[in-house]
């Protein structure tokens, strides 16, 4: 079994090196913060409360995101309709928005002064109260439902269409199809998707605080902020970050251990034909799933468009310069992320390493951005002025942060490509670069495009470490937007937010589309 992957051991070797690099890049900054701490201090009762709340909201958010994503992904997989592609692209949007922009969009719909509250008012009902644990979960589902849907949709589309054809000729009922194809696919896909969303939500800070309604909604990340800036207690900040990593590593091992790799066997590479079942109940189900999800995601974005459209043309030049800088950084960071992810996926295709590499890949989003930024700052400061490295460091960290999403999309596809084409490639004696180029890469275009799109858009919208390193002359678009907000220029900030939304979507669309150029449909 193992020797089938042998011919590409060079790539897998690079994968191992990258995995070590990623692990170091994640853990060294943590160590640097520990070393710099002046005195050791422990955790307090409030910290444990923060840990409990963090776990609770992250688990609920991941649960609901995945639960709701399954019917939407299934509907998108088996229906063909005008605008399907637009819906799938828009699915990428909320995920890549800067937090405060997305929160403002959500509040325009669900807030006290929002659209839904006004609609309720017409019927004499009180406005909805969004602030609380349910508000946090709602916002996290808004961010992550699209991501979950896309990742699960990849799983659906990876089921070889020959299977469906065979099933049809054997007279399988929809429930037979579910049992034989869909459930095994979900068992393989869902734990990883759940994990990524869970991890993303564990470092949430602003969303949890704003929509959680106050200090009850204190997350570990906020506790780290407090330790770092309120008390300058680096030791406590580092302890909290270690706990964050620990929780995430355990969650990763538990979830991914049992996630059975897909064993769907070989197909002939055809894109899944839309196997729309004839049942009316299912049609209603699918229409509802797509309709509700689209409305839930599109309304807040529509509010952002309406809020910002009048201010785009009048934006100051510095905002446009920041936008160009952000685009360049986003593209570089997407390329770098692919460079990391492809070898790691090759390594993961060799079974023995799968779990370890998978967890390492997921860790980078689990570590507090504040601690990573501070740690990198401490490491770089003695060597050179960190401000001068702000842009390269941001590109690097953004690439790291998008790794988990890339791996989620790429690794199953890589394994599938090896399984379906490996024997043929062996027989033809394809090795090294030729094997990668002819047997593997053509089957990876879709997840590669999607992953690069996510990486680029994520980098576009991320405030990230740049905020810790920046000097006024080298800001990014999100940073410039925050500056506008901080100077009372709310209208300009809304305009900048719209530009950001548009650019993120455009980048995502271009990469994602690029990945599908060769694919039929």
């Amino acid at each position: 079994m193992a020797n089938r992957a042998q011919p590409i051991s060079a790539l897998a070797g690079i994968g191992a090196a990258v995995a070590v690099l990623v692990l170091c890049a994640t853990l060294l900054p943590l160590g640097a913060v520990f070393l710099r701490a002046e005195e050791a201090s422990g955790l307090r009762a409030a910290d444990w409360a923060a840990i409990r709340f963090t776990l609770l909201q992250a688990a609920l958010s991941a649960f609901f995101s995945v639960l709701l994503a399954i019917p939407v992904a299934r509907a998108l997989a088996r229906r063909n309709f005008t605008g399907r592609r637009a819906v799938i692209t828009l699915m990428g949007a909320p995920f890549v928005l800067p937090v405060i922009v997305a929160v403002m969009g959500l509040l325009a719909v669900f807030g006290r002064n929002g659209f839904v509250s006004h609609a309720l008012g017409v019927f004499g009902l009180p406005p909805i109260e969004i602030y609380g644990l349910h508000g946090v979960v709602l916002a996290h589902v808004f961010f992550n439902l699209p991501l979950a849907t896309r990742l699960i949709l990849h799983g659906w589309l990876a089921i070889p269409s020959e299977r469906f054809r065979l099933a049809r000729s054997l007279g399988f009922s929809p429930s037979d199809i579910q049992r034989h194809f869909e459930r095994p696919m979900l068992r393989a896909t869902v734990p990883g998707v759940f994990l990524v969303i869970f991890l993303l939500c564990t470092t949430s800070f602003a969303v949890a605080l704003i929509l959680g309604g106050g200090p009850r909604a204190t997350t570990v990340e906020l506790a780290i902020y407090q330790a770092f800036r309120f008390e300058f207690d680096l030791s406590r900040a580092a302890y909290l970050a270690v706990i964050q990593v620990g929780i995430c590593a355990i969650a990763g091992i538990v979830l991914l251990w049992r996630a059975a790799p897909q064993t769907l066997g070989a197909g002939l590479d055809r894109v899944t034909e839309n196997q729309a079942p004839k049942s009316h109940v299912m049609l209603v189900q699918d229409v509802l799933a797509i309709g509700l999800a689209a409305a839930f995601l599109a309304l807040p974005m529509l509010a952002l468009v309406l809020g910002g459209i009048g201010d785009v043309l009048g934006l100051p030049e510095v905002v446009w310069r920041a936008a160009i800088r952000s685009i360049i950084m986003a593209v570089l960071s997407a390329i770098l992320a692919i460079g990391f992810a492809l070898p790691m996926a090759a390594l993961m295709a060799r079974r023995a390493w799968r779990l370890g590499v998978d967890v390492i890949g997921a860790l980078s989003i689990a570590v507090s951005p504040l601690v990573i930024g501070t740690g990198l700052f401490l490491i770089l400061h003695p060597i050179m002025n960190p401000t001068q490295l702000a842009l390269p460091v941001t590109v690097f960290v953004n690439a790291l942060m998008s790794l988990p999403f890339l791996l989620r999309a790429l690794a199953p596809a890589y394994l599938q490509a090896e399984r379906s084409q490996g024997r043929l490639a062996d027989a033809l004696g394809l090795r090294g670069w030729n094997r990668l180029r002819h047997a593997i890469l053509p089957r990876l275009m879709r997840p590669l495009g999607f992953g690069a799109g996510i990486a680029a858009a994520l980098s576009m919208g991320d405030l990230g470490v740049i905020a810790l390193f920046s000097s006024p002359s080298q800001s990014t678009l999100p940073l410039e937007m925050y500056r506008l907000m901080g100077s009372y220029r709310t209208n300009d900030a809304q305009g900048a937010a719209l530009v950001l939304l548009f650019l993120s979507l455009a980048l995502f669309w271009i990469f994602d589309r690029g990945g599908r150029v060769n694919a039929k449909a």
Partner: protein
Amino acid sequence: MKHTIIAAGLISLSGAAFAQQPVLTVYTYDSFASDWGPGPQVEAAFEAECACDVQFVTAGDGAALLARIRLEGAGSDADIVLGLDTNLTHAATDTGLFAAHGIQAEGLTLPIEWSDPQFLPFDWGYFAFVHNADLENVPANFTELAQSDARIVIQDPRSSTPGLGLLMWIDAAYGEDAAMIWDGLADNIVTVTPGWSEAYGLFLEGEADMVLSYTTSPAYHLIAEEDASKAAALFDEGHYMQVEVAGVLANSDQRELATAFLEFMVGETFQTIIPTTNWMYPAALAAEALPDGFETLIQPQDALLLSPEEAAMRRDAALETWQTALSQ
């Protein structure tokens, strides 16, 4: 192509063009140095008289600025830190990284006495709850606010300097009874945000009736947007002040230049830039010299401010009170 762009960017960043002039490195908070803050004008005005190159390095806000200086320690490139407030100066003094400024600032126009040997103020403001001018039954103090059903949005004291300001305001005004006030306010608080920008944004979107900001906030809307629809509520227990200060690093290799900058900072040129860029009161400018529109702002009877030592001493207990009251 990309490499050229990056290389060009790195070269221009290193300030090669100014290599022959001494460089004055000023660490400040982000919104001070942004294109809409005082930074660009201050830089141009001082460079016109100092034969030097002023370079700003930014951190998120005053607290982030202090954290950064502490991280860098004695090896910091900073000559000046501009943008701490009196809630932070005690901890800043304790680091031992700052030198005495040695300036006799006689023209200060703060409503309080100033005698800090290390830090010199450049602007100040009163915290206040800002609301739409058409709000009915505007509360006149914290007790009335707590009893009203006005919905307010505030900032988290752990991550925001105005948020910490409110903590000290209630502590300074009510002392032992602060817990009672916070209990009463708990049901008025819509939510708590990480920073000022988010809170103000929520208020402008109509999520709350009032937002914790400054008495000078309505001046922005009035002067920059010709919009008189915002007002600040006058509280009869007095308003807590935020005094923003700057200090010289003991390890600065440009001590003379840095001192010259501090003198410039409390001079007329710098001070007249402040009101309509930082939207705060300048620390050394007569009231008559303020721009038109500032005369419409509310004038608190009492200026409240804990000394840096007191503020540092009472901070943790005040935070505990706040957390307990709002976590129930």
